[in-house]
């Protein structure tokens, strides 16, 4: 990465920073709206995912990362989803009176 490149990156960092701040305010604001739990969770998680991907993609440079890293993260994500889903599905399918 050349020096100029870095300089243009810095602009990106600043705008990401601003976006993150805005989203933080947004999510806090929404939480005061007394939405039903379903909506509240959906919105909060959407905002969190957006914020999270901004951090990962720009601060952690995931957006321009090498292929190997993608593969590792995809694999992790698959297992992450399995780890989340299967215990929950099992609990739902529990034989119980």
């Amino acid at each position, binding site marked *: 990465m050349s020096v100029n490149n870095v300089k243009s990156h810095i602009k990106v960092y600043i705008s990401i920073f601003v976006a993150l701040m805005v989203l933080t305010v947004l999510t806090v604001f929404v939480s005061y709206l007394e939405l039903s739990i379903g909506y509240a969770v959906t919105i909060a998680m959407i905002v969190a995912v957006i914020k999270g991907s901004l951090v990962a993609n720009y601060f952690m440079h995931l957006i321009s990362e090498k292929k190997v890293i993608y593969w590792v993260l995809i694999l992790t994500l698959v297992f992450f989803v399995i780890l989340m889903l299967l215990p929950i599905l099992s609990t739902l399918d*529990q*034989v*119980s*009176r």
Partner: protein
Amino acid sequence: MEKFLGLPIDASASGHEVDNLIVIIHYLMFVLFIGWGIFFMYTIFRFRKTKNPVADYHGVKSHASNYLEIMVVAFEVVLLVVFSIPLWAKRVNDFPKEKNAVVVNVVGEQFAWNIHYPGKDGKFGKQDIKLIDSDNPLGLNRSDEDAKDDITTINELYLPVNKPVIINIRSKDVIHSFKLPVMRIGQDAIPGLDIPVWFTPTVKGEYEIACAQLCGLGHYRMKGSLFIVTEEEFNNWLEEQFSNL
């Protein structure tokens, strides 16, 4: 084969289903093991250095093993689709109607099985943990209308022969596992959950309830008795328990 495998006697209407599966799969295992075993011994003796000083770079060329693998897969599919999955579904979904069945609660605790019959009214009385003491291990609230005729025993489960039984399994403290080897029934007793199992005893006799999950220092002696009696004897027994209340 059942004899050969040394399974305990089978005293329930569905026990043979479990046994059949165990037997069939052991056939598969024996065949595979013996088949591979013969090949294995043959190669070891045939291809020792003394017998075969120069190795063959390519080795086996046939694809027999692929066919064999496909056959094993097919066999496993059959075992799953024809036996195990439907049998399990029957076990957890096709409960007999409560009115045609004997319903019992079994509550595990360190280190005993509390058996709870609803009595004549068929309703289980209210329970309250505050009432639990050594005389009333289930905390049964005897002033509750439904509880008046409830019968409780410790480690003694009487059941009538040839009638479906539903047993609700719970635990007061840690995880136990309610196991009736002769009925081919096993179900963990998990605190916080109330899990039903069902079966139909078919052979009269005196058997055992085992605890199959490590539950502390008395795990090894957490043994109950299971009595399968005629319907008449069962009713007499209930009557007798009731009069002792």
